[in-house]
């Protein structure tokens, strides 16, 4: 294999600044939305005392989960010693950090009292998974930045494998922790499942890789660098495996629920008569987010075309949002079963009267906050690749494929 | 014994403060005479000098004692500060302690200290809050 040379992203200035301006504007609108929500209080959002976590949490968790997944490419290179992935490791680490920052920003700006962030950083209840996650997230950033340093600084290269392994273990812990935020909630049937944690790990592989591939294809096309099939096809095959694995875990989750009688009504709700949640599950998550991209990725000819690969990445992201929507919002909308064998026929607090689900309709503000977070993640990634030598000059087949001449 | 010594010390400080206070009282009283309950009193819950410098620690200490241990030393409660230090307008209506220029705000403005306490805590004496009102 040839030696890889890295160079800053060379998009011409007007275009580069134009893109930054657009992303900054979207991020700014997200910031203003957050300000509006904080100023008025959360009643201006769709969230309520019935559905307490909404759109911001879907975006935040998507970004956090994708962040750890985006690091996979680097891990495969340095932990598992797969050289073809090595040129991509830097970008993988950078995107992992910026995605995480975007996600945390959304999470923090949705807090009831973001002004007390300092309290969250200094006062810990170590019984809380959430508190552990705060440490896991901050630790992740530090570790990945160190890891990136070992890739870029010749003198630190000897520590590369150690840092990579540590980052890999850390990221597995991080996603397990994120999944456990839900998995430990015994109160709500939809979350009370041990499978949540491993499912989040595999979700992170898939979401993170889809985001990474999209970014990679975009930045290479934008400044006219060569990106060979050997890299793209390798990644898209990997994505196919991950999407199929998420599908498998989804099946396992629902089948184990169907096995236990007390969860039948929940399964009925998600799979059959939950209205919007049922639709999002079947159309968004299963059809558009899983089956169609699998079809494209494994299609003998479509699966080799860049645009189709990009479309399937986009669909995987769409499926990711659908899946998180069904898990997070659907899980809250489904009434808590407080009185087995009885039906609630009246309540002063929406306790699922006659089995009715709680309602949630996301408002523009909370959605814009979430989109703002995505924008911040991409914007920061673009700034970093412009300023530091992150991208290999060429990823053409002849430069990366060890088997090509 | 220790306790006694402490009390002795505290009262000595108090006496001195009151003494020195009376010397300056004329000018001070004029500037403060806005119908505070505190106007008619000579001293705060602790010596004024102590309060001026350490009131924050006193309240924050009290806050944790109250919330976590159920200890409600009335003297040191935030509600009590408000009770004594809220002033009244010409009609005798209580003015919020955290309004511009009012007791709890006037130094904080200068010191650029921003308090969030009164987002939650009542800003006028309990007796001035209409009972059983339509809370909102």
């Amino acid at each position, binding site marked *: 294999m040839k030696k890889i040379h890295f160079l800053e992203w060379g998009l011409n200035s007007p275009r580069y600044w134009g893109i930054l301006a657009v992303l900054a504007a979207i991020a700014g609108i997200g910031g203003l939305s957050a300000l509006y929500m904080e100023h008025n*209080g*959360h009643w201006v959002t769709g969230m*309520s*005392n*019935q559905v*307490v976590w909404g759109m911001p949490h879907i975006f935040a968790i998507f970004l956090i989960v994708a962040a750890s997944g985006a690091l996979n490419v680097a891990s495969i290179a340095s932990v598992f010693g797969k050289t073809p992935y090595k040129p991509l490791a830097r970008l993988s680490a950078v995107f992992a950090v910026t995605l995480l920052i975007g996600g945390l920003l959304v999470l923090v700006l949705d*807090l*009831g009292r973001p002004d*007390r962030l300092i*309290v*969250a950083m200094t*006062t*810990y*209840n170590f*019984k*809380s*998974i*959430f*508190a552990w996650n*705060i440490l896991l997230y901050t630790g992740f950033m530090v570790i990945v930045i160190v890891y990136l340093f070992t890739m870029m600084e010749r003198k630190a290269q000897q520590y590369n494998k150690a840092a990579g392994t540590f980052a890999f273990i850390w990221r597995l812990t991080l996603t397990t922790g994120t999944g456990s*935020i839900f998995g*430990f*909630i*015994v*109160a709500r049937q939809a979350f009370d499942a041990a499978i949540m944690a491993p499912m989040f790990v595999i979700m992170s592989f898939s979401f993170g890789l889809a985001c990474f591939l999209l970014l990679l294809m975009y930045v290479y096309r934008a400044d006219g660098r060569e990106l060979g099939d050997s890299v793209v096809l390798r990644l898209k095959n990997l994505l196919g495996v991950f999407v199929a694995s998420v599908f498998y875990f989804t099946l396992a989750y629902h089948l184990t629920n169907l096995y236990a009688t007390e969860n039948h009504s929940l399964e009925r709700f998600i799979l059959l008569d939950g209205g919007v949640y049922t639709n999002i599950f079947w159309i968004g998550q299963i059809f558009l987010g899983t089956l169609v991209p699998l079809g494209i990725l494994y299609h003998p000819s479509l699966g080799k075309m860049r645009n189709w690969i990009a479309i399937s990445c986009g669909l995987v992201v769409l499926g990711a949002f659908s899946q998180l929507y069904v898990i997070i919002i659907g899980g809250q909308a489904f009434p*808590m079963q*407080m009185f087995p*064998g*009885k039906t*609630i*026929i*009246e*309540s*002063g*607090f929406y*306790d699922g009267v006659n089995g009715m689900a709680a309602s949630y309709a996301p408002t523009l503000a909370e959605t814009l906050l979430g989109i703002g977070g995505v924008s911040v993640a991409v914007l920061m990634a673009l700034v970093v690749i412009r300023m530091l030598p992150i991208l290999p000059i060429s990823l053409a087949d002849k430069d990366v494929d060890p088997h090509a001449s | 014994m220790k*306790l006694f010594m402490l009390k002795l010390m*505290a009262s000595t400080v108090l006496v001195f403060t009151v003494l020195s206070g009376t010397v300056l009282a004329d000018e001070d009283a004029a500037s403060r005479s806005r119908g505070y309950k505190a106007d008619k009193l000579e001293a705060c819950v602790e010596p004024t000098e*102590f309060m001026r410098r*350490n009131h924050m*620690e*006193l309240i924050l200490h009290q806050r944790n*004692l109250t*919330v*976590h*241990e*159920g*200890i*409600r*030393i009335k003297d*040191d409660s935030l509600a009590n500060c408000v009770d004594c230090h809220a002033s009244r307008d010409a009609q005798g209506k209580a003015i919020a302690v955290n309004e511009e220029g009012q007791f709890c705000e006037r130094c904080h403005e200068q010191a650029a200290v921003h308090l969030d306490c009164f*987002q*939650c*805590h*009542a800003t006028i004496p*309990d007796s001035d*809050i209409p009972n059983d009102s*339509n*809370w*909102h």
Partner: protein
Amino acid sequence: MADKNNLLANKARRSFLGKAAAAASLTVAPGVVLQSIAAVKSGTEGVSDNTRWGMLIDTSKCADGCDACVTACASENGLPVHERPKSDPVWIRKVKLKDNLTDSVTTLPMMCQHCEKPPCADVCPTGASFRRADGIVMVDRHICIGCRYCMMACPYKARSFIHEEIVLKPTHTPRGKGCVESCNFCVHRLDSGNETTACQEACQKEGHNAIIFGDLKDSSSEVSQALRNLPSREIRADLQLNTGVRYKDI
């Protein structure tokens, strides 16, 4: 400086001595125990786990259509009258149930069940949700960051997030935007020696007496006696949270 430290230390000592005395007196003489409990209950000494506040709700006495407990709670604690029912805070609510087999109808009040092992406190990242020594589960709103994880974790849907600014509030229940809150057994009353809650008082006034409140650890209290003599159960007993609120006849 030394002056200040002494003063604060002295105040702390006052509360610490109170606790130490309570612990010591337990082993020394019964008379002293009584004395220190009296001190605890009047709010000058720290609360201790010699007390556990709890409730028994006799659903057979809870009248359909009566919401005296709900309105009493709202006016005691300054909760708003419903303008935005989805986001307005509710500390206690009436729930009406129909048995799926017998069609028999029960009504009962639901509120924070004051678990011995509260899931809300377990998940709270900052420790703002906590259980006081005397069994009251509450939120320290000075360190609550408004993440709402406790609301996700509560099996009783007992908690409310404050979705908007609160202009007028009673002196004894400070409340404000951006924090989570829930029933605290009218802690301000208990700490000042009044051993009733607003809901219990209202229910009594209506003549229903469906709510019995008191110290579960005091075997002579009305609530302890009632719990001994009447069959009662916890809601979601499967979670083994050992709730402080028990229900009869559901």
